[in-house]
């Protein structure tokens, strides 16, 4: 197998795995955070503004882990440095 094929296959499979596995934990965590925030709002509706503001910030922190996975997989697909290197080497 030539290296172009290997790099292409490995990049695509890894990109899929990165998003697939990497979003499991943030999804569960965001669900828990939202659940607890809703429970808190149900118990104390007066504090809804503070709770939802903190919830948004917390969700953004949790979500950023999923976004790191997404960015890595996008780099693997659209801006893969190894792929560019191999293409440049074969063109030479």
């Amino acid at each position, binding site marked *: 197998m030539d290296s172009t094929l290997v790099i292409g296959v490995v990049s695509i499979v890894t990109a899929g795995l990165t998003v697939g596995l990497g979003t499991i934990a943030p999804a569960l965590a965001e669900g828990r955070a939202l659940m607890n925030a809703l429970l808190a709002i149900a118990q104390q509706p007066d504090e809804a503004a503070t709770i939802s*503001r903190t919830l948004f910030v917390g969700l*953004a922190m949790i*979500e*950023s882990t999923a976004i*790191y996975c997404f960015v890595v997989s996008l*780099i693997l697909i*659209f801006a893969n440095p190894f792929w560019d290197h191999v293409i440049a080497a074969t063109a030479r």
Partner: protein
Amino acid sequence: MNISPDQTVLLDFGPVSINATLVFTWLTIALLAGLARWITRKLSTTGELSSWQNCLEVLVEGAQRQIRDIARQDPDPFLSFIVTLFFFIATCNLLAVVPGYEPPTGSLSTTTALALCVFCAVPFYGIRRHGLRRFLHLYLEPTPLMLPLNLIGELARTLALAVRLYGNVMSGGLVAAILLLVAPFVFPALMNVLGLLTGLIQAYIFAVLATVFIAAATAAQEQTAHHSQPRV
């Protein structure tokens, strides 16, 4: 496919090239600065308020209240910094629905620059408030053993700030572009509406996190000051 407006080079002067990120950043800055200049040119404290002045006052007062709630201290020293960050990011993200406009926040270089501004603002406000010695002592809290962790945390949160904004804005644009290929009629518009929402929320989150970081540098020192002199 481009994943960053950095790759769209409009003009090339040898070592310096003008890419889409720069041009749209300048456009956004010109728009915001021009609008602010135009509104504040005819401010009035008595009688009729112009509707633009009223709108701006509502925004600034809302920002003041939010910062006071989050930081639990006087918002005036860092109000201008935080609100500038918020308005710049929000304008970039909202203008993303305009055809042909590539949001500068969808480029890692812009978001890194913004995150570096926050990174520099934390010591700036910390030192201005409590002096160099006490600010540096904050890194030795709770024990000097935590020094490397505190330093790594400082760098990691800057990186996280940059990549979070970049990832959100860029992924919004990219998903819209991919949906345009797959289902060209209704779904891209829906995704753009969602993009408006996430764009505003991301701008808000960036501003809130900047506030929290700066407030941690200025308020924690007050607490240590209280702890260090309880018997006076």
